[in-house]
């Protein structure tokens, strides 16, 4: 009888040695990482993000470098040029810069962060770093934006090939996929709707453009639309849901009516109406997808805030007279956002699907912007022959991306709320 008691006593009295305190998020991420499929999904999304950033260096009709024969002052010389870098657009540069800063931030401050014991200082340091980074990015990109909008270049891969053959150029280093997303095979070459070949690894589409290159470049469109649209939804949903949850009764009444209004028209039809009526450029599509997707987030935030407003710390904050926006955004929101992350992930998956569906129906992004959905459109027209090479690859990409996001969402939900998975 003594032994168990002893153990119990020892267990109760002896302090737990040196276990570092882990924040809620660290616990959740740890639970998330345990399942291998979650890690794979996350890696896939990371891969797509990297693809979106680095695609100009992977699929481009311009070579990294090439020596061209030019006449200077009457005599012929070989000039080494760097066309790919010369043709980079402002968007490419911004993306590169931001991702470089993100990586730098992650490594530097993750390391540094461990050295600060107090949470407060860590937070300020991180915030300060982030502000510096973003400020630098913006200030560097503004002049780029001004003097470097999309340049027109008259050369494409076929022209370079010709020059190499006639001896007007030498020493060219091309990218892995040596086609841009807009370049077309010459009309008379009759290389439209071709199946996979040595030149075009995934074949060509209806205008003679390389399918693989368009597949890779679509990742930008899809990722961009996904993130930006969901950010807009998040902003609207959090604000409205928060107000609904905090001020009950009247505001809740009106807010719920607003939510019902947006939900009572089938979302897809609402999106169609907006796009068909107000324009198809990529910014409009992002905004429209954002405006039509906030209701789910609002419902969740409202539910959370309804729970939270009764908590002690909120009552205390109100009692000491903190201004409203501080109570909402500094105290309630960080705690209320936890389940919202899950909704956001599913929301991105839904946005990717919606954008592909819209492009498929012919009301998506404008040509020649590539999108997986519009590639599927060309493949699957039932009145014409079935072009399987244009159907399989983009569909697979959409599937894998949406699947990955769904797995991440599921994994996060299981990690955050383990009650769902266990029997109590």
């Amino acid at each position: 009888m003594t032994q168990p008691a002893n153990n119990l006593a020892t267990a109760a009295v002896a302090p737990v040695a040196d276990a570092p305190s882990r924040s809620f998020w660290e616990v959740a991420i740890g639970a998330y990482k345990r399942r291998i499929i979650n890690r794979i999904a996350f890696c896939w999304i990371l891969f797509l993000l990297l693809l979106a950033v680095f695609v100009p260096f992977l699929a481009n009709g311009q070579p990294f470098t090439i020596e061209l024969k030019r006449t200077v002052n009457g005599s012929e010389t070989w000039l080494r040029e760097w066309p790919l870098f010369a043709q980079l657009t402002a968007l490419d540069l911004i993306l590169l810069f931001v991702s470089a800063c993100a990586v730098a931030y992650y490594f530097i401050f993750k390391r540094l962060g461990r050295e600060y014991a107090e949470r407060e200082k860590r937070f300020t340091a991180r915030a300060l770093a982030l502000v510096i980074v973003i400020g630098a990015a913006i200030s560097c990109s503004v002049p780029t934006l001004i003097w470097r909008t999309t340049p027109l270049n008259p050369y494409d891969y076929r022209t370079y090939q010709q020059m190499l053959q006639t001896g007007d150029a030498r020493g060219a280093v091309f990218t892995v996929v040596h086609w841009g997303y807009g370049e077309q095979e010459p009309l008379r070459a009759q290389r439209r709707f071709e199946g996979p070949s040595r030149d075009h690894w995934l074949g060509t589409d209806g205008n003679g453009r390389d399918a693989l290159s368009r597949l890779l470049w679509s990742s930008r469109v899809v990722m961009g639309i996904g993130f930006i649209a969901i950010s807009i939804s998040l902003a609207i949903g959090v604000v409205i849901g928060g107000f609904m949850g905090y001020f009950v009764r009247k505001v809740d009444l009106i807010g719920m009516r607003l939510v019902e209004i947006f939900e009572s028209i089938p979302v897809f039809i609402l999106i169609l109406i907006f796009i068909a009526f107000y324009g198809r450029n990529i910014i409009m599509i992002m905004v429209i997808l954002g405006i039509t997707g906030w209701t789910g987030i609002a419902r969740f935030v409202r539910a959370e805030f309804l729970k939270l407003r009764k908590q002690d710390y909120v009552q205390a904050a109100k009692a000491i007279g903190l201004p409203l926006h501080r109570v909402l955004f500094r105290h309630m929101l960080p705690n209320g956002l936890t389940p919202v992350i899950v909704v956001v992930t599913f929301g991105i998956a839904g946005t990717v699907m919606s954008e592909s569906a819209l492009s498929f129906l012919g009301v998506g992004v404008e040509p020649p912007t590539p999108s997986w959905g519009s590639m599927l459109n060309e493949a699957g027209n039932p009145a014409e022959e079935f072009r399987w090479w244009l159907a399989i690859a983009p569909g697979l990409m959409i599937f894998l991306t949406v699947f990955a996001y769904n797995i991440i969402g599921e994994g996060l939900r299981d990690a955050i709320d383990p009650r769902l998975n266990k029997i109590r």
Partner: protein
Amino acid sequence: MGDRFTFKDFVFIVCLLLVVAAVFLAMGQFNRQESRLNDLIAGVEGLSKAQQQQSQQIDALREQLKNGVAVSNNNAAQTPAKEIIRRKTADGGLYVYYPVAPTTPRDPRGKPGYAVGDWLVINLGSEPNYVTPYIAKDAYGSDVQDLVLQTLITRNPETLEYEPFLAESYEIIPAKLTYRFVLRENIWFSDRTPITADDVIYSFKVCMMPGIDADRAQSYLKKIKAVRKVDDRTIDIEFSEPYFMGLEVAGAFVEIIPAKHYQFTDPKEYNNWTDRLIGSGPYIFDKARWKKGQQLEMVRNENYWGPRPTFDRLVLRFISNQQAALQAFQSGEIDSHTPTPDQFKRLGEDAEFVKNNIVYKFKRPNSGYRYIGWNMRKPIFADKETRQALTMLIDRAGINETLMRGLVYEITGPFSPMVEQNNPNIKAWPYDPIEARKKLAAAGWKQNARGVLERNGQELSFALLIPSQNSVAESIATYVKEEFRKAGVDMRISPLEFSVLVEKLDNREFDAAMLGWTGGIEGDPYQIWHSASAKDKGSNFVGFINKRADELIEAGRKELDKDKRMKLWHEFHAVVHDESPYLFLHASMAMSFVNKRFKNTEPYPVGLNNSDWYVPSADQKYR
């Protein structure tokens, strides 16, 4: 235990639901049986009516025989056979007289193996909403009407001349701006009421009445000053000003309807009739034979005043999906099919298919053309050198061969090369990018730092509007964008819904637009090319304002002499070619698949004419 809802209860309820569903299905089945029975009864009734009429006719013949019949022999003097008269009258007009209603140049009667009978099943593509005369809103309605209604004059499909049809003669009287038509004797509607001048007057009255929804015809009929009855068979139609299309407007626009069946008090009442269609044509429209959503059956008019129509029935199916229509054609459910370019490419050139079917591909003068219009109000498009250079940058022949798969043909101006209005001496702008670049440089364009051509501080950068959801327009626009890019022209593609596109054109809020116009045998260029149409919301949305062109159009519209008129149109064509307000892309060819059992199916220049077709007795499918 007894109260609970167990699994057995669930099964019981499901079985109950299945029984209820089965009852509903059985009721549906009863309905179908009843409608088939109704069809049967209608068929039998039709047969007995036909039999009655035949016995009546036999009785009449017997009567006549009783009264004696003179049999002529070759030597007896006969009344001389009347001849066709076509002569110019004293005051510069024209008098045309056809003693017998003209038949088509390839009239099947008399050809070897000609037999009456069989059905012709064609696909209308889409179900018409209205078939009432004059207010049909879509092309499908007028396809049905063409079988039932007839006009005073018709166009000969080969010579393209107008011949008097319901009229036995027409006369153009320039001095009085009048067209005089004399109706034939012995013509009647499908219920045997004779066609008189009163019916013609009434038809015009209805068509020109303001409350009637006949926008298409009314815009032309406005030029008619008066329609007068001279006597029981003669009608005078007077215009308010000389108009070169006057004969067509007076004689071929207004179909003749029987006055007694189309009486109404309020035009709105007329606008609401959807299926009142009675006329004098070779086939009869019967409301009962219109199976909504599936097909419309037209039966031969046994009382037809002309030669007996060949087919017993004409069945019009409504299959809108092109793939399903092709399958229906291949399985023999429909007898002719207009393939999409891709279908034609796949099958029309397949040896096996060509052996088992009749395949046609031909140029038609009235198929319309596709173009890119430059908004000439914008400074970048203001000078003709730039516009000509832009045209020369595009390999139009290449587009026709590859993107359009060789199913279109080249045009040089707003007229199809197959009509007389077209000036055959004009050669299209060649595909010459080097020359084009020289032209652009000569016009003052220089490449700036961005690689775009610039002049006076303005870049040659614009947006091309195309109708969205049109993959052909999109692929052409994509190709054009690439070609332009190589020369330093920055073009963006902006697909818009058609109604938005139209609004932008109306408000002149565009840089360039890719569209098409439908064509005609001899069209009136006023609406598109005259400067008066350039203001407000007229159809001259590119803003083509050219004094010489205006003069030529106005003179041509008034010129009633065809040769002089054609010379004017030819010069007009040269002016348009030089000014290049449009980049003329191409005109489409017509393609058709026809079931092998039909004979005499060769197309005319204007297209296939299925009143010429017949099926020899041995091959007839439907009896």
